């Protein structure tokens, strides 16, 4: 049996669709092509997931977004795989083309302390117990390595890139509540290789980068992204949870927008204490996101040219740095 079941070309402004078998109870629906990393595909993923949620298909159990894909689980005694594909084809024709998509999307503002001592501790443990010669560890941290990977003049330029853009939660996954963030402003795009081998310990609240995505660790766990700093807890999975998490154990949802503001570590420690004691009010603004706003910025000739120039510098820098 073939791994690729079907492909569908939608009209010219919607991405092409590839349907792949994912066992006898799921279909993996992939959109467009893998490169370049294209936020338009992710917007389409969320619009499709949303549409499926609002117009349920009998026998379709759940759908989980990836960066440019949707994993659709179904109950085979109720619906056949081919019928799932037909239903998805129909949904794709009903979902607006990417530039007309509007999605429910909250804005969440989080503090970040860059190069904090807990992240350094994780880097230190890695160097001691896993890989003393790791090229991504410079002076006890990963930040300088990320700076070089992106051909930035100094750490401050890296921090600035992160603080300058809203970050789009392209999907949640790996661990419960872990967001994978991409910048809505293409000038803030960054990238970095992953650890090799993976790191055994990552503190909760760590902010890290791997490939094109920025992540926040919801729990203490292993990890393979380069550590940049630390923020507040973003999940509260135990049954007794503070007010901000009463309705939901996971703070950041897919398609939320996150902005960071810089604070020092002393202040972060205090804010984290408030969060654990249930006294911290997370800055969450409900709302919707009009995807056209993204394209208005991203396709502005000056912005696009600057983003491309930075991409080119990054490509050259990657050829120079040592991959772990």
């Amino acid at each position, binding site marked *: 049996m073939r791994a690729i079941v079907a492909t569908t070309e939608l009209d010219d402004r919607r991405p092409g669709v590839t349907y792949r078998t*994912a066992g*006898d109870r799921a279909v*993996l629906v992939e959109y467009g092509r*893998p490169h370049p990393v294209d936020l338009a595909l992710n917007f389409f993923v969320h619009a499709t997931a949303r549409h499926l949620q609002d117009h349920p298909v009998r026998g379709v159990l759940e759908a989980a977004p990836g960066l*440019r894909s949707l994993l659709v689980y179904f109950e085979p005694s109720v619906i056949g795989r081919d019928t799932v594909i037909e239903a998805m084809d129909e949904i794709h024709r009903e979902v607006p083309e990417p530039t007309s998509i509007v999605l429910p999307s909250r804005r969440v503002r989080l503090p970040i302390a860059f190069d904090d001592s807990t992240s350094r501790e994780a880097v230190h443990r890695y160097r001691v117990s896993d890989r003393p010669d790791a090229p991504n560890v410079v002076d006890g941290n990963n930040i300088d390595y990320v700076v070089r990977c992106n051909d930035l003049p100094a750490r401050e330029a890296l921090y600035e890139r992160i603080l300058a853009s809203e970050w789009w939660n392209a999907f949640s*996954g790996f661990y419960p509540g872990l967001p994978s963030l991409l910048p809505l402003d293409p000038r803030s795009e960054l990238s970095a290789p992953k650890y090799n081998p993976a790191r055994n310990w990552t503190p909760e609240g760590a902010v890290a980068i791997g490939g094109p995505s920025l992540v926040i660790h919801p*729990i203490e*766990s292993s990890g393979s992204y380069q550590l940049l700093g630390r923020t507040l807890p973003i999940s509260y999975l135990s*049954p007794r949870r503070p007010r901000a998490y009463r309705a939901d*154990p996971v703070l950041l949802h897919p398609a939320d927008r996150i902005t960071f503001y810089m604070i020092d570590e002393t202040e972060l420690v205090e804010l984290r204490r408030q969060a654990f004691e249930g006294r911290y009010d997370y800055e969450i603004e409900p709302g919707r996101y009009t995807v056209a706003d993204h394209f208005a910025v991203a396709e502005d000739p000056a912005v696009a040219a600057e983003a491309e120039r930075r991409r080119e510098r990054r490509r050259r820098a990657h050829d120079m740095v040592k991959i772990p």
Partner: protein
Amino acid sequence: MTPRTRTTVAEPFLEVIDPGLQTTVQDFPGRRGRQALGFFPSGPVDHLAFRAANLLVGNGSDAAGLEIPLGRFQAAIVRPGTIAVTGPEVPLTRNGRPLPMWESVPVEEGDVIASGVLSGPGYRTYLAVAGGIAVPEAYGSRATQLVAGIGGLDGRALERADVLDVHVTDGGARPRRRMPSSLRPTYRRHWEIEVVRGPHADPDYLTAEDVEYLFSATWRCDLNSDRVAVRLNQHRFAWARASGDVAGGHPSNMLDTSYPLGGVLAYGDVLTILGPDSNSSGGFAVVATVAHAALWKVGQFRPGMDTVTFREIDLAQAAALDEHLGRVLDSRHLATV
């Protein structure tokens, strides 16, 4: 087919004397419907033996029970009830006297139930209690997720002196039942496991020769295997592409995607079968996916000892396997003791 467990009140049922290697509370099908938020389902790795145990004690399909790796477990019963233990053969005793497996047996206050380390093939046994283990639901399930520390008893494996509650039902005696040996699964040292090719196999990820190797090779199950994943021995595929480009160096790398339960992941050059506590997503190619009706076998691989071959099947064959599983788990086929 099975009635939902009628719950009234939770009462203490057993106190753990020896928790064994990593005994956890699980339910089936676990924590579904939340993969978009990053939750993989958890639940028993062998859903066949787990569901059979619940069936034997007359529980509904939503009841929670225990998953006991390697068979080692010991507990004191503090309230009369009915239990059943399923899975590969282990020395099972009540107060030192042998007790049958795959059969519901009454237990009394003061009894000590003990099961010893399994020596033959297979790896996980399951213990069900009439009424079901009473732990709070966490996000729609009682299943323990050890990595995130949620579900089950405080999100962790059982420890000595833990007391587990049971849902006390209407009090009526449950008929004693046995699963006929003709319906019980056979445990082996070498497993053949039914998989469906893809999502990321040939022609764009693996070469035709790679796929041929995937389905003809005998794979060794690594000692470092658990509820998260079963790791298989390293093998260098040729790969149909030079690299993962933007997603990373190795050709198995791709832009992050949600993983299917039972996916056979190419983690670089190491194949891994995604268990119920696995990462819900990631950036590696899933070259094949275990058929739902064959997932139970993954729960019985003995780490560091067993071997496995993948047999490719299509959706019609997967449906036939489902149908067979349905017959095995049909309470009408149970014998009355």
